[in-house]
């Protein structure tokens, strides 16, 4: 993983990135990258996940900037390879830069990406609000907060609000395990980050 040591030099866009239109810069490149899926959640692509941030021309060639989800996400080098491969198959040479600031947030997922997650059986994340202040942590732990309506996780199978957390950590760092008490199906919840 190559990490930019001077994050202040490159300002990344904040928020979700909409699908590019043909009149926009680097449309052909963005369009090619639409086919690059998240290695662990293959129903969404890197743009929909908010991982793909910038395509730009530099003095040394075309550069694609991505940002890691979690610091230790083991799929990052796979994503770099997938981006390079997708472009080289179309005869485009590019280098991939991984930049960590500003930090990725689940708020950067597109609405389309969230719907795809839900259809795939993963409850999409609530607005994050996390990472703002350490004070948030105190609220985190109380079971009473979990019962708060704003924290309710809807079952992606039957839509029921009657769900319960089985474990804070699921099959990957970005997900928690939940169980629906109505249809009794277990499911993953993509944690707000």
């Amino acid at each position: 993983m190559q990490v930019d040591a001077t994050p202040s030099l490159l300002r990344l866009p904040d928020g979700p990135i909409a699908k590019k239109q043909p009149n926009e810069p680097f449309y052909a490149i963005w369009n090619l990258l639409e086919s690059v899926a998240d290695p662990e959640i293959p129903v969404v692509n890197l743009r929909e996940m908010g991982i793909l941030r910038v395509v730009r021309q530099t003095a040394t060639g075309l550069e694609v900037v991505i940002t890691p989800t979690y610091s230790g996400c083991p799929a990052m080098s796979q994503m770099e390879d997938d981006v390079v491969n997708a472009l080289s198959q179309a005869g485009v040479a590019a280098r991939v830069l991984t930049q960590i600031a500003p930090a990725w947030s689940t708020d950067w997922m597109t609405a389309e990406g969230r719907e795809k997650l839900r259809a795939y059986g993963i409850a999409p994340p609530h607005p994050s609000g996390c990472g703002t202040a350490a004070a948030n942590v105190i609220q985190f732990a109380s079971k009473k907060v979990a019962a708060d309506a704003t924290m309710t996780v809807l079952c992606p199978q039957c839509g029921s609000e009657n769900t319960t957390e089985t474990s804070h950590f699921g099959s990957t760092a970005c997900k928690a395990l939940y169980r629906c008490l109505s249809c009794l199906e277990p499911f993953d919840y993509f944690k707000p980050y």
Partner: protein
Amino acid sequence: MAAYFQDYLLHLADNAVILGQRNAQWCGHGPVIEEDLALANNSLDLIGQARLLYQHVATVRKDGKTSEDLLAYFRDVPDFKNYTLLELPHSTALTPTSSGDRDYAVTIGRNFLYSALMVLVWDALKSSADAQLAAIASKSLKETQYHLRHARDWLVRLGDGTDESHARMQAAINHLMPYTQEFFTPSVMETAVVKTGMGVDNRTLQADWNTLVDEALVQATLKRPAAGGFVTTGKTGIHSEHLGFVLAEMQSLARAHPEAVW
């Protein structure tokens, strides 16, 4: 001054890598499968944080040969600057009823005490004068909040659980608390980086840490033990007898096959 900043980055990185290695020892041995996964995920985050910090040291050093692997695998015990708390084993029998060589209460207690500190440290380091450290802090804060939530929930569940789980959680906290004195005892390296605005003085976080700890212990029906006695010195490179065993396990593959790739 630059050397102190590198030492500070190594201190933060070594904390993460050593606790990551310790927690990974539960992989395949968790008390329930959800906890097995939780600890593996916790390790993954910590090792990810350590990588970012080691890479930053390599960038700052600019000697063309320092790499994250060199820093993690080819330094020895006196070079590591982690808190002594983090290198301790998952412990032996602390109560008459515990058996085996791993006590989950110790794992939970340590993760709780350390995560409660680190949410405050990372939050403060978001405004570090060093832009890359500030970036790493913003990212690490989000992950550490989850670690704290996980550890705190189990602390309460075990403390306010059965007589047995209560006794073992209390014994674990009694065992671990003295090591937290090291968090708030400044070293030369920390004092230097606080002056440059790159690091944080942990003593300014101590009141908030006490609040986090006290509230959780009350909810867990546990008593807060006095944290007196010897103040450990891991962050200055003087460690307990346990770190050598952690490093032997962690570094043996890289040292047997230097620069191997797959």
